[in-house]
């Protein structure tokens, strides 16, 4: 991503750096309302202090997503069989 950032941390009337960092996770999760989302997006894009924070936060979220997709899709067949055996002993007759 190519973004023009300032040389210094920002502190303007709209959003200061501390507030932007506190709102960062909600921003990246898409949990902010439109005005807050725009304020954080604009701040992060222009602020030399906050831009690396957002970049690093995205790295963490991407890494967690990797773990999520790498999870085994199915448990072992033996486990499913043992569960069904146990359930049938209790009256379950389903598939």
């Amino acid at each position, binding site marked *: 991503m190519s973004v023009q950032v300032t040389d210094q941390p920002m502190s303007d009337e709209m959003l200061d750096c*501390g507030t932007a*960092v506190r709102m960062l*996770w909600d921003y990246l999760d898409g949990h902010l309302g439109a005005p807050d989302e725009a304020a954080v997006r604009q701040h992060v894009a222009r602020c030399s202090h906050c831009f*690396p*924070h957002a*970049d*690093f*936060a*995205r*790295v*963490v*979220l991407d*890494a*967690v997503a*990797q*773990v*999520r997709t*790498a*999870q*085994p*899709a*199915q*448990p*072992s067949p033996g*486990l*499913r069989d*043992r*569960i069904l055996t*146990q*359930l049938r002993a*209790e009256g*379950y*007759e*389903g*598939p």
Partner: protein
Amino acid sequence: MSDAVIDRQQNFHEIALRWLPDVTRFAQSLTRDEPAAEDLVQETYLRAWRHWDTFKPGSEARAWLFTIARNAWRKRAPRDARLVAVEDDTLQALSDAEYPLGASRDIAQSLAGSDIGPAIGRAIDALPDAFREVVQLVELQELPYAEAALVLDIPVGTVRSRLFRARRLLQGALLEHARDAGLVSANAPEDIT
């Protein structure tokens, strides 16, 4: 067999057993031990079947099963391994102490080309229980905050704050990984509030 009994069996198959992979992963997260996880999954489904009449049709079966699994684990786990209630100010102190942001401005770029999946997986496993279970439910099982709150029996706001603190701890672990791998300077300044 009556129609009601047949419906009960069919519903259990379609609604409860379909979540077996998710319940298994959640049990693995709780126990961090494969045989213990499989035992816990078996116990969860046995309890679920015995209490299937109490399940409210239309409610979230996965969260219901997770709750059963977590309660079963709390009862069976050795005292020293049991999930314990932790005050949130204690958790906050823990995560604040390891708050890593700003340690390197180039950390994201440094990590971009490396395989950090295994490192983050180990970091998740190493999280304190109260954080790990939130990460497991919200990040890995993709439960909404409200459903995770029901499973954990904590307020939605606590789910959110624990998740964010957990992410900060994971950032700390990734930073340590990057330093160990020589991807960033070991003496990078820590400059964030």
